[in-house]
């Protein structure tokens, strides 16, 4: 639905066409997007999670009260 929402406007259409052309090499691939989303399996998500949500990829920020003041 998010993809559909985007391509409802001329702004979203041009943005997506450009994005697919630049990042995926061909604007025509945009038309396969709904199908590609449909084909994603649980295992695919797990693989991506394993690859990217690794400790070495982690950045941690800590918010702390300044107690000295």
């Amino acid at each position, binding site marked *: *639905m*998010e993809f*559909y*929402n985007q*391509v*409802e*406007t*001329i*702004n979203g259409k041009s943005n997506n066409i450009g994005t697919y052309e630049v990042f995926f090499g061909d604007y025509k691939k945009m038309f396969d997007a709904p199908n590609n989303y449909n084909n994603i399996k649980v295992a695919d998500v797990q693989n991506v999670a394993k690859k990217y949500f690794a400790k070495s990829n982690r950045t941690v920020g800590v918010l702390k009260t300044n107690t000295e003041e």
Partner: protein
Amino acid sequence: MKRITQKLIVICLFLFTFSNLSAQGFKLPEHTKFKLPNGLTIYLMEQHDVPVISVSAVLPAGAIYDQEKNGLAFLTAKALKHGTKNFSKSKLDEEIDFIGAFIGTDASKEFASVSSKFAAKDQDKMLNLIKEILLDPVFDVAEFEKEKSRLLVGLEQQKESPRAVIGDYFDKLLYGNHVYGNEIQGNNASVEKLTIDDVKSFYNTNYKPNQAAISIVGDFSTKEMKSKLTALFSKWKKSENELENLATKSIDYPAENLVMLVNKDDAKETTFFIGAKGIPRNNPDFVAIEVINTLFGGRFTSMLNDELRVNTGLTYGAGSRFNTLKNGGSFIISTFTASKTTEAAIDKSLEVLNKLHTNGIDEKSLTSAKNYVKGQFPPRYETTSQLANLLTQMFWYNFDASFIENFEKNVDSLDLQNANQIIADYFPQNIFQFVLVGKSADIKKIAEKYGKVTEVNIK
């Protein structure tokens, strides 16, 4: 050779005329309108660009029907999603969420609305859920109490933000006892008293098909959709007697300058509205007024923002707008400034408005505003949700396709003489209502300069 050239000329001429024709103005896409025997008005518009469907429904169930129970219309609209005959609240939320769909319920000043968007393939499931929400809500008491305490906390939080409450104060000041003065979300005292029985009785009185409309726009076949909706919504019982619409009573706009001073003890700045009587939505000069207001206070480079932000640095932003309702409306200049520059900012705002009246506008700025308004127009009616909303707005405010189809003409035909007439007719000149939210101790003297002051503490 000569013949070929002739042919080319003919083709060129043809193309020229054709492209000219297609550039001639906007057209409201074709749609069907029909009424069920129970009085429900239905609009269907096919749009096959993207496989989605948007729904917009309006019902005579806004804050103007609250009677003494301010906030009731709002809570009732929210409570529609607290579960239905066949779906508990969590089941309902899950069903909608799982397919990436959306259903929202809300109440505004005049009407309650249900809006929804989903993938075309999910239409049967979603149309059924919309029907459940509208026709078969069960009003779970535990969920109601949660919603009510959330609303009370929300109202409490709004006191922190002058901008969140100033509109309610202004509407009270301008509309007085007329129902257009009703606060949409109510106030602490009124909401505290609301019960689940109030909600049920409000629902039973106001959620009826005969003064309501549903519009559906998107990727479907009109013929199929028509029979689906007829099957789903024909069981909806119409009300026995016509709902009394208190909003049609005449509005007593104040005849003198009034100032509502809203004290916020910890304020370092003053947030203010300067306003007056405006126009109802179906005013025939609606478009022309929009053009002039764009110039005066609508866009970033407007006269107001130029003077108060750019030239004097009194504020971060200043603007004006016409808030239009069915039977009336308001005009508002709004901005905010540091407590100590309160007087300078109010005087400057009035000065810019006065300049609009005395100097009028020139050809160059009128052209620029016209271009701006035309350029902004098409993306406002682009998506299925925008079109669905447009159709229910047309129903509620009683305007037709000519708003879209004559839009360019109405903008283009506005010449300097008309423009200056519009200014004289619709932009206030003598009587203003002021709401100042700020630290009373610092600005009370200033407030008294502009009219009779009523002082209250931020609610």
